[in-house]
């Protein structure tokens, strides 16, 4: 047995080169440690220096309303572009506003300019209506009248309740929008809407080729997308620029008032006259469409009284095939 061999000198003679090797090894190790430690200290120093930053602290308001202190070097602009930016703004809505529309039926003589302006802005086919003027006759013995009808932007919107994917939603400023990047095309909202305000892109949208590559703007619903729902948006994109909606501005007969319920002020799209909303509704017997359904519309109507022109049943200009 080799290990039980009592002969020591042999072992002694082997020990001295072995310890020399160990010494060199340890020295090398120590050197590496020093270098590593130094590097760590140096980087720690850099890190600390960075932490101090410029020493300039800025107070910022976060999205959830908290004040926070942030070093000025740390502030980076959060850049949202294109569709992302549109979606962000489009979901939020315009703070502090409660948009409202008043339609004066005594002035509507079915010029249908509102319709064409709307269809042009939203890239719609002639048979696709965000707003349509209907020839109404409530009972056999009452007079017929023209009634522009768009989405009523209900405060208790049945369409929003039934949407399975939150594609259609209600914003803080009262507008009901539809996100056609998310819509699955189930058309439950169309079934649920008592005002028949919603349309569907059954076939390739009119401007599909021309709009290709355009960033989708949820406040304009352009580009329109095949297989998704579309509807009146109260021209949310125009409101952001503090302009009146497309239909309101296009009307030649002073039918539309549009404004902010919080300010109690609405502006006539034709005369540009601004009046008190509450007074306008009170003095003219303002009402809503089918309020008994509990939908709480944001569109008011002024009754078709004292009309200064006869009711004309214009020929239908709609194309016959679609």
């Amino acid at each position: 047995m080799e290990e039980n061999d009592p002969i020591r000198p042999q072992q002694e003679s082997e020990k001295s080169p072995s310890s020399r090797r160990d010494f060199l090894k340890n020295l090398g190790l120590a050197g590496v440690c020093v270098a590593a430690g130094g590097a760590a200290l140096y980087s720690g120093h850099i890190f600390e220096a960075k932490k101090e930053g410029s020493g300039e602290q800025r107070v910022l308001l976060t999205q959830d309303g908290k004040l926070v202190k942030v070093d000025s070097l740390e502030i980076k602009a959060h850049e949202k572009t294109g569709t992302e930016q549109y979606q962000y703004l489009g979901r939020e809505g315009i703070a502090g506003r409660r948009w409202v529309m008043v339609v004066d039926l005594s002035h509507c003589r079915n010029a249908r300019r509102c319709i064409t302006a709307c269809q042009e802005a939203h890239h719609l086919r002639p048979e696709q209506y965000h707003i349509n003027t209907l020839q109404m006759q409530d009972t056999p013995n009452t007079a017929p009248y023209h009634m522009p009808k768009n989405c009523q932007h209900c405060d208790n919107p049945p369409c929003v309740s039934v949407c399975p994917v939150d594609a259609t939603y209600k914003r803080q400023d009262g507008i009901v929008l539809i996100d056609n990047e998310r819509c699955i095309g189930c058309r439950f909202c169309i079934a649920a809407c008592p005002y028949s305000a919603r349309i569907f892109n059954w076939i390739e949208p009119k401007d599909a080729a021309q709009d290709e590559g355009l960033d989708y703007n949820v406040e304009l619903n352009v580009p329109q997308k095949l297989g998704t729902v579309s509807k009146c948006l109260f021209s949310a994109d125009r409101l952001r620029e503090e302009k009146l909606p497309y239909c309101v501005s296009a009307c030649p007969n002073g039918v539309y008032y549009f404004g902010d319920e919080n300010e109690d002020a609405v502006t006539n799209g034709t005369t540009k006259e601004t009046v008190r909303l509450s007074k306008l509704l009170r003095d003219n017997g303002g009402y809503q469409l089918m309020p008994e359904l509990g939908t709480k519309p944001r569109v008011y109507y002024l009754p078709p009284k004292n009309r200064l022109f006869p009711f004309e049943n214009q020929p239908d200009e709609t194309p016959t095939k679609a």
Partner: protein
Amino acid sequence: MAEKDFTLEKITGDLTHHIRLNKGFLAWMGFLTISLLVCLYAYSLQLKNGLGVAGIRDYVSWGMYLSNFVFFVASSLIGMLISAFLGLIGMKWITPLTRIAETIAVAFAAVAGLVIVSDMGRPERLANVFIYARFQSPILWDVTVITTYFVLSLLLLFLPMIADLAIIQRKVTTLPAWLRTVYKVLSLNYRDTPEQNRIIHRSIRILLILIIPAALSIHTVTSWLFAVTSRAGWDSTIFGPYFVSGAFVAGTAAVILAMFFFRKNYKLSDYLTDLHFNNMGKVLATVSLVYLYFNLNEFLVPGYKLKRADAVHLHELLAGKDALLFWFVQIGGLLLPILFMLFRRFRKPVPITIIAVAVLIAAWFKRYLIVIPTQEHPFLPIQHIPENFLHYTPTLTETLISIAPFLLVLIIITLILKFFPVIPLQETAKEKGVEPFIFD
């Protein structure tokens, strides 16, 4: 005591001899597959060009696809009525019908999910339903309960079959080796031990109880897709039970039809006897009477008041554009069948099957009448739109796409009841007093 003439050999032979690839089966499957391919081509057109290939437009935006969906959900309810309801109250005669009923339930429930996808404008965004799920929407409830019902039905089809598979795998040696391997795997090493029987029996019992609320939910929630809106014709508080009772009518008719087919083609007249047709006739008469009662409520009460929108809706149905279809459904699919089924001689296999066919066709058109006419007269007038927006007419492409789910259901039922015994083997043997002592 074994019933006269019934031995284990005879029962096993009778109930499994259809498990073979005969010419009739291959021809039938070939026909179904080719037809399905044609229909899938039609669907590819819809995927490419949009839902505009169908006749649905902005006003009637839910058409045949959706009435088809309602019909499929309705037909699938029968599994619960036969196995759970009649089974739990102690009806013994349902034993040979349970597998047919559960197969119909599984096939229709599975395909109902696909039908609704064919109605989506953006089927590729189906995952959004789970990613952005909103619990307020009845669609999410529907997805949940239909999936649950499908899984429960599948288990109720499978668990009672485990013993059968073990018996066939041991006893029917003429079957191809691969098929016996499949049975062996599926029979989960069943050896007729008291412990195994206890587990299976308890599981089935729990499932039978669970499936009752699940089945009621699927059709109640489906009815709510309509009843949660304020439209005349849909705005009804009895839509849930109205749909459920109608579903039992459709499903019972479907089972009678399947019974007749399998009795004749699989030569099962010793097991699916005149008694079973007679009893199913009584069941169909009973559920039809219940359905008649709900129909009376659904039309008479709004008809008495004639609120403006209801009046227009009822006029179109009873005397207007849809009157012919409406009266065919009510008289041909409900009143006359009930009258006939009161007499025993109309509950014999052939007449009751003819009645079932009429009831089933009427049941499909009934869903059509529930879904479409309501949308043709909304609250506000439909104006300044092309003619084809006014009245709904299904297109050829749409019809083909609507036929596809029927083919799929037939394929599923054919396959399941071709490769597995139509009549529960072990239970039948036990009921005939023949104990299948073939396990060591």
